[in-house]
């Protein structure tokens, strides 16, 4: 299981802005170790954000997304106090879900 995310979600005038930091190495698959062997790609594949079980935003990442990914997006239709849940899944089928109340 992955490490916790940091999620900030703030509602203002009907629009909720979300900022997420995910802890992940996002190994590109392009790097070599000290012995010259390619370090296999290891990265988050998908990120899904939901409010009340309804998807509000979804992302697919390739190996070129930076280490410890940052994601910032906005959506309408949620209220302060609603729970926003974010789930990522990586290419080794590791996953992590965290939840935050919209402020």
């Amino acid at each position, binding site marked *: 299981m992955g*490490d*916790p995310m*940091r999620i900030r979600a703030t509602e203002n005038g009907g629009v909720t802005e979300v900022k997420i*930091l995910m802890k992940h190495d996002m190994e590109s698959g392009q*790097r070599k170790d000290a012995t010259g062997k390619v370090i296999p790609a290891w990265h988050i594949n998908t990120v899904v954000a939901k409010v009340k079980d309804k998807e509000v935003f979804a992302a697919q990442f390739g190996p070129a997304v930076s280490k*410890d990914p940052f994601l910032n997006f906005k959506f309408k239709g949620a209220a302060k106090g609603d729970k926003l849940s974010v789930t990522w899944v990586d290419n080794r089928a590791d996953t992590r879900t965290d939840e935050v109340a919209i402020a």
Partner: protein
Amino acid sequence: MKKIMSGGVSATLGLGLCFLVTSVGAQNAPTASDGIAKYREMIADGNPAELYEAEGEQLWKKAAGSKNATLEKCDLGLGAGVVKGAAAQLPRYFKDTNRVQDLESRLMTCMEVLQGIDPKEIVDAPFGKGAKKAVEAVVAYVVTSSRDMKINAPMKHPKEKEMYALGKRAFYYRGGAMDFSCASCHDDASKRIRLQDLPDLTSAKGAALGWGYWPAYRVSSGEFWTMQRRLNDCYRQQRFPYPNYVSDVTIALSTYLAANAKGGVMHTPGLKR
């Protein structure tokens, strides 16, 4: 539109300091500096150091070591268990160890005394790994708790003054195959290496620009770097030998920097290239 994907991502992508050699078109320096300023502004939002801070806060409260104790009674200089503001007043003299300590050496003392963790394990572990990794996360937590506070290392005890003098001497100490000292790059505010501006660490303003923004998350390595690690890599690039973890010279340099930066603001943890 170009369709040719030439070359591969450098083997050291995300790791090395100077990992890319790229030809950039003819352009004058001010434009380049403006571009860099925008880049820094854009990455300022969302510092991954927060991920380390969250982990560090958990570790602070989690029982560990042979004594199965937490760090909650650790005295960082403002009394047992006081984290808020503590980093802004380090390094300082501690009576129980009769030494001037920086944050990392003090955390090692707490881990040894309270938790029964062997300091040697911490010293011997590489940066970002093993027992050192835990210290680094706790550092992220502690320095975040001094954010926006005034830098105010005491500098009253004779041993603090002694460390300051040693730090100053170390700052100007030239040696090795390139004759470099810290001062070679850091005693003039108008200079830069490549496109990186170099703060004058001998002045209050410049020292605050350095001390006030470290420890930091480094995007070039994708890791959170403590002050010990920052100094370690300075010495590596200076072509000096390896400074021992929490050795006198590293604590002395931190003492010198913190004292010079007095009155400046803690922006820790920073976000650096």
